[in-house]
C-alpha cells in the first residue's frame, strides 16, 4: 500500500510538471494547429523572470515579503511570457497560418534566437525591453482611438512608444545599478532558491512528501482549473472554443478571430511562463532549460490528442506514472517474482534513459490503436 501510494505520488509529481509544461502547447495546438517549438524557450523566460523577481525581493524595501516572492513571480512570469508570445504571434506566426510546418521551422528559429539572447544580453536590459513592450501594448489598448483624428492618433501612438521606451530604459538602468548580477551578460546557469517554507518535506505514512513538489502540483491544479473555467465560462473562452471548432463560421458570426488568436497564443505562452516558475524550483535556470522539457511535452500532446484538455491531463499523468514505474525499477518491487525473462527486460529498462525509450515505444504502439490520441476530435472533416 505504501509502495503504491509512493509510486502514485511520484508519478503525480512528474506528471504535473509535464502537464503544466504541455498545457499551453496543447491549447495553442488545439486552436491553431500550430506547434510552437519555442515553447520550451518561453518556459526558460518564465524561469528567468522568477530569478529576477527573486533578486528584486532581496532588495531592502521588499525583503520582509521575501517568502512570498514565488506567488508574485507566477504573475510576473505569466505576464512576461504572454507579452513575448503576443509579440511572436503578431510578428511571425500571424503570417504563417495554414502553413503549420513552416510555423514549426520559424518557431525553432525563434527558440535559437531566444536562447542566444539570454546568453548575450544582460538580464537587466532584457527586463527593460520587456517593460517597454508591455507598457507600449497597454497604451495601445487603452488609447481612445475613435475620438482622435488621424494625426492626433499618430502623435499619441508615437509619444506613447517613446514614453514606454523611456520607462523601459529607466527600469533597466535601475535594475542593473541596484543588482549588479543583472548588469552583465552571462551564459552561466543561475539558481532560484525556494523560500524556506518551501524547502524540506513532511512525513506521512512513512513517505516523505517534498513541499516543492506539492506546491507544483497545486500550481498545476489551479492552472488547469482556471483554464477550464476560462474556456467554459467566460465570453472569450466561448469564442475561443467556437473558433477551434469552426474558424470561418465563427468569423461569419462576427467573432474577431484575430483577437482570439492573440488571446489564445498569449494564454498558451503565459502558461509556459508558469511552467517556467515550476521548473525553476526543481533545477537550475539556464538557456537550455526549456529544451529539457519540450520533448516530454510533445509526447503528451501526441498521446493526449488535439483540442481536449482531459486528454492532455490523462496523458501527462500516465506518462509520469509510467516514468516512475519503469525508471525507478518499481515494477520489480511490486511484483517480485515475475518470470525471469520478463524480469531481465524490466531490469534492462530500469534506468531513466531507457525508461524514455520504452515509453516512446509504448506510445507508438498505442497510436496503432488510437491514431489521433486518447480523445480524437470528432467532426466531419475529410482529414481525420
Amino acid at each position, binding site marked *: 500500500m505504501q509502495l503504491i501510494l509512493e509510486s502514485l505520488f511520484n508519478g503525480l509529481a*512528474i506528471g504535473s510538471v509535464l502537464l503544466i509544461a504541455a498545457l499551453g502547447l496543447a491549447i495553442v495546438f488545439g486552436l491553431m494547429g500550430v506547434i510552437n517549438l519555442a515553447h520550451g524557450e518561453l518556459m526558460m523566460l518564465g524561469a528567468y523572470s522568477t530569478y529576477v523577481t527573486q533578486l528584486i525581493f532581496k532588495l531592502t524595501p521588499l525583503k520582509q515579503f521575501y517568502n512570498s516572492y514565488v506567488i508574485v513571480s507566477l504573475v510576473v512570469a505569466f505576464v512576461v511570457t504572454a507579452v513575448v508570445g503576443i509579440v511572436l504571434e503578431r510578428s511571425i506566426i500571424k503570417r504563417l497560418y495554414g502553413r503549420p510546418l513552416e510555423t514549426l521551422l520559424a518557431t525553432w528559429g525563434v527558440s535559437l534566437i531566444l536562447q542566444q539572447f539570454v546568453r548575450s544580453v544582460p538580464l537587466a536590459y532584457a527586463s527593460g525591453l520587456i517593460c517597454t513592450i508591455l507598457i507600449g501594448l497597454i497604451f495601445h489598448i487603452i488609447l481612445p482611438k475613435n475620438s482622435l483624428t488621424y494625426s492626433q492618433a499618430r502623435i499619441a501612438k508615437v509619444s506613447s512608444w517613446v514614453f514606454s521606451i523611456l520607462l523601459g530604459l529607466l527600469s533597466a538602468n535601475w535594475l542593473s545599478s541596484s543588482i549588479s548580477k543583472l548588469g552583465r551578460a552571462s551564459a552561466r546557469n543561475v539558481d532560484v532558491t525556494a523560500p524556506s517554507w518551501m524547502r524540506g518535506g513532511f512525513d506521512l505514512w512513512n513517505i516523505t512528501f*517534498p513541499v*516543492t513538489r506539492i506546491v507544483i502540483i497545486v500550481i498545476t491544479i489551479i492552472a488547469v482549473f482556471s483554464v477550464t473555467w476560462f474556456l467554459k465560462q467566460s465570453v472569450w473562452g466561448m469564442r475561443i472554443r467556437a473558433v477551434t471548432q469552426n474558424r470561418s463560421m465563427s468569423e461569419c458570426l462576427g467573432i474577431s478571430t484575430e483577437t482570439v488568436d492573440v488571446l489564445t497564443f498569449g494564454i498558451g505562452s503565459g502558461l509556459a511562463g508558469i511552467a517556467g516558475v515550476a521548473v525553476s524550483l526543481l533545477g537550475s535556470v539556464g538557456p537550455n532549460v526549456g529544451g529539457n522539457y519540450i520533448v516530454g511535452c510533445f509526447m503528451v500532446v501526441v498521446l493526449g490528442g488535439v483540442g481536449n484538455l482531459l486528454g492532455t491531463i490523462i496523458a501527462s499523468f500516465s506518462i509520469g506514472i509510467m516514468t516512475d514505474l519503469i525508471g525507478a525499477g518499481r515494477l520489480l518491487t511490486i511484483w517480485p517474482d515475475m518470470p525471469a525473462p520478463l524480469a531481465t527486460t524490466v531490469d534492462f529498462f530500469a534506468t531513466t534513459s531507457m525508461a524514455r525509450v520504452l515509453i516512446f515505444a509504448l506510445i507508438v504502439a498505442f497510436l496503432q490503436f488510437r491514431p489521433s490520441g486518447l480523445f480524437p476530435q470528432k467532426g466531419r472533416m475529410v482529414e481525420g
Partner: protein
Amino acid sequence: MSITKRLFVGLSTIALGASITACGGSDQSTSCVDCDDQVTVGILHSLSGTMAISESTLVDTEKMAIEEINAAGGVEVGGKKYEIKYIVEDGASDWPTFAEKSKKLIDQDKVPVVFGGWTSASRKAMLPVYESKDAFLYYPIQYEAQECSNNIFYTGATPNQQSEPATEFMFKRSPAAGKPFFLVGSDYVFPRTSNTITIEQVKSLGGEVVGEDYLPLGNTEVAPIIAKIKKALPNGGVIINTLNGDQNVAFFKQIQDVGITPDNGYYVMSYSIAEEEISTIGPEFLAGHYGAWNYMMSINTPASKKFARNFKKRWGSDRVVADPQESAYNMVYLWKAAVEKAGTFDDNEVRKALIGVKFDAPQGPVEVMPNHHLSQTVRIGQITSGGQFKILESTNGPVLPQAWNQFEPSSKGYACDWTDSKKGERYPL
C-alpha cells in the same frame, strides 16, 4: 529543362567552384609560426552550447597564464624571446566539432600545441586526430584514465588521484564509514568508467554498492533516481555523485527535500563539484557534503592565494578559481617550461623534454611523469556554508598517476611509459 535552368545550373556550379577556390586561397596564412618573435598556440574549448559555462572559465585561465608569461618576457628558445599568441576555437559542446576544429588548428593554423577539451567524449573525439597527425594536445580535466596517448598530455587527476582516495575516505573515515554506497552519474563515459572502478574498489575494501543509476544528459527529472536511492539506502549511506553541470542543481535541491541530508546520515561525495559549481548550486544545498580535488581555493599557501588573486584581478572580483582552472593554468606553464628545456617548438622534442618537468603549481609541486600525467596532491574537503571547501585531509606530498587503473580487472597490472620505446602505451608491470 529550359535554357535558363541550365544556365543557372552552370552559373551556380561555376560560382561554387570560384567561391571554393577563393576561400581556399584566402584562408591561408591566418597565423604564423616562428615568424619573427611570436608563436601561436591553439585554445579549443566550448564557447557555445551546454558546456560553454564550464569551459569558458578554462579559456579565461589559459589566457591569463599566457598573458602572465608574456608579461614576464615570453618563451625563451635558443636565446630568443617569443611572445605567445593564441587562436581560440569554439568546440560548441559538440564532440565532432572538437575533432573538426582540431584539424583546423593543426593543418591550417599549424599551431605547435593545442590546449583544449573538457568532457571525456570531446577528448576521445579529438584523440584520433592528434594521433593520425602526430600533433600534441594538452587536456586539463580530471578524468577516468584507462587511456595513455603519446599525443595527449593530461594535467587533470587520474582516478587514483581523486576518486580512489575519496572512496577510501568515505568508507573508512567519514561519518558514514562502513555504510553501503549508491552511485549516481550522468550518462556518459566518465561517470560510467569511474563508477566501474569505484565498484571494484568498494568490493576490495569489503563494502557494498547497493545500486547505480545514470541520468541522460540534458534530462533533469531526477525523481526516479531519488526514489531508487531511498529504496536502496533506507538508513543512510554514501552517495558517489558524478552528475554533470545543471543536473547537479536539480539533484541537490530535490534530495534535500526528501530528507537525504547529512543530518539523516546521507553523505554525498561529488567528483565534479568545485567552487564554481558550489556558487551556482547554492552552498545551502551542499553544506556538509564532500568533494575531492587536487586544488581547492581554500588552500592556504602563497602560491594558491596569488593564483586566486590574479584571477579575480583579471576577470572580476566575484569570480572563483577551481581545480580544472588550476590544471589549465599549470599546463600552459608546463608547456612553456618544456619548450625552453627542449630549445625548440618541435613537437617531438618538446614531448621528450616534458617528462620530468617540475612546476610550483598553486596546489603545490607537480611533476610530469613518463606516462604523460602529473603527480599531484590529493585533498578531501567538506563543503562549508560559505561556499568553500574545508580541507579535511590531504595526501603527504604528490601522488603518482596511474593511467591504467589497478582496481578494474581489465587494466590491472598494466602501466604506461613513453620514455621507453619497449614499454609505450600499455605494458604489464
